[in-house]
């Protein structure tokens, strides 16, 4: 086995379908994302983005509906309350910010927050954790933590999010589309 997961089959797809099937969700999962200052000094490239509803609205004004990527982005952010990203790229291996991750995980209390995906790869030493906040059948937020040997990324989104649309943004927005299989 290449990977040693504690994973429940099809969770990702189920989670995606759940969010797709609920296009107008009343979302309000307020997470406090750390800035991961301990990583900033060591990172060769840092991205710290926090956009609230107001800024998302302002940014949306510059999305051109006639451009396919922009139109898709506009449809994705419609109904979002916030989007926060912390992403760090390193030249060499970095110390995983255990304390910050623990502080973040402490906020993900059940039953509101459920872990949808948890994978660990021994081969490429990567971990992926996806949490979804839900009340009944309604998702209320999303938290994604991706740890790789040279990259660490945390994404938090609250609001009416369409996961499938968000995923399909790849290939637009200047991001090259990655191969889906290995």
């Amino acid at each position: 086995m290449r990977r040693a997961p504690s994973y429940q089959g099809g969770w990702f797809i189920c989670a995606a379908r759940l969010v797709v099937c609920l296009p107008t969700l009343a979302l309000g999962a307020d997470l406090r994302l750390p800035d991961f200052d301990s990583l900033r000094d060591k990172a060769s490239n840092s991205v710290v983005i926090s956009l609230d509803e107001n800024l998302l609205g302002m940014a949306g004004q510059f999305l051109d509906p006639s451009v396919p990527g922009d139109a898709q982005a506009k449809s994705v952010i419609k109904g979002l309350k916030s989007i926060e990203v912390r992403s760090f790229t390193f030249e060499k291996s970095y110390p995983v910010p255990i304390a910050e991750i623990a502080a973040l995980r402490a906020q993900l209390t059940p039953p509101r927050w459920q872990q949808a995906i948890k994978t660990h790869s021994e081969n490429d030493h990567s971990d992926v954790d996806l949490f979804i906040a839900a009340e009944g059948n309604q998702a209320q937020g999303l938290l994604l933590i991706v740890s790789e040997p040279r990259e660490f990324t945390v994404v938090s989104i609250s609001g009416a999010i369409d996961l499938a649309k968000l995923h399909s943004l790849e290939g637009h927005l200047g991001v090259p589309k990655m191969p889906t299989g290995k």
Partner: protein
Amino acid sequence: MSRDLEQDLRQALRAVNPSPEFTNRLLAGITTQRRAATSIRRLWPRQTVAAASVLVALGLGWGAYHHQQRERALQAHVELIKALAITSRSLDRAYQAVHSLDTDKVHGG
């Protein structure tokens, strides 16, 4: 009789030098009126300039605010595109991780 009348009239209508007191009062009155007129004339341009300054200041302030908001929105737009790109890429990593597990299960049992 008519001579006396003529005499009296001449006497009454003769040129008389004004008293210094009268002259002073007259000059003082004229000066006051001139000052009042001048101050009104001076006040109008000042008020106009002040009003224009306020309008210009308001216009500049609004322009600066508008420019600042536009800059902020542009910055937010750039950040949004970057955030969505990173999110999309990270979701793809998650998808790949799950997909790879499914493949392993199929091929590896």
